[in-house]
């Protein structure tokens, strides 16, 4: 069964997202939340890495965390799906395990 990876760290400050991307396997999903949502910004180094993996790995980002940080509309890289907390719960229940990259 595939894994849901959850990342709550800014990729500009910490290596958690980079390490997550290095260990996520095809078919896995990655949810960006808390300061992890900065990884969803378009036009950054990390956005390139995400678009390179998008397709093989599914990318999600938590809407409430985006909005809080002023990234609500049009700032997000292509291929990332916005979900709310209910969608977060669905991601947990539909994947075999949840791995937190702290």
């Amino acid at each position: 069964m595939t894994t849901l990876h959850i990342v709550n760290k800014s990729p500009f400050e910490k290596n958690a997202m980079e390490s997550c991307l290095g260990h996520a396997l095809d078919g896995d999903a990655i949810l960006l939340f808390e300061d992890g949502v900065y990884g969803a910004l378009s036009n950054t180094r990390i956005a390139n890495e995400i678009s390179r993996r998008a397709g093989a790995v599914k990318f999600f980002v938590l809407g409430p965390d985006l909005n809080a940080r002023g990234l609500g509309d049009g700032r997000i890289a292509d291929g990332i799906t916005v979900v709310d907390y209910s969608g977060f719960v669905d991601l947990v229940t539909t994947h075999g395990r949840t791995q937190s990259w702290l």
Partner: protein
Amino acid sequence: MSEAKKFLYVNRKAPYGTIYALESLEVVLIGAAFDQHVSLAFVDDGVFQIAKGQDTKSLGVKNFSPTYRALGDYGVTKFYVEKDSLDERGLSADDLMEITYEDENDGFAEKPSIIVVTKAEMAEVMRDQDVILSF
């Protein structure tokens, strides 16, 4: 009390993920009541603290970003923002809130508080201080 000192608040962390941005701002507000020279530095993820359009309603936490805009009324008028940090995050100065102050030495003309600087300029700002508070 000795003569006025230069205080720099260095903000390097994003808001909301941790409390540092909010509690740093609380120090700045209290510190403004003392008669010192105050500057703020926004470096690395700290630039996200003053991003425009912050809306925390669906998160259930307090949106403290409007407070930055009020700091001018407390005499806090120097927001040094590092351009290199903006660039790395795909941001420009247009993505930041409009933060201004009324210059009492110039007929209360409204002037921008944000000063975008290079990394080399930021390093000079930092060395020009008496007290550096990092959160």
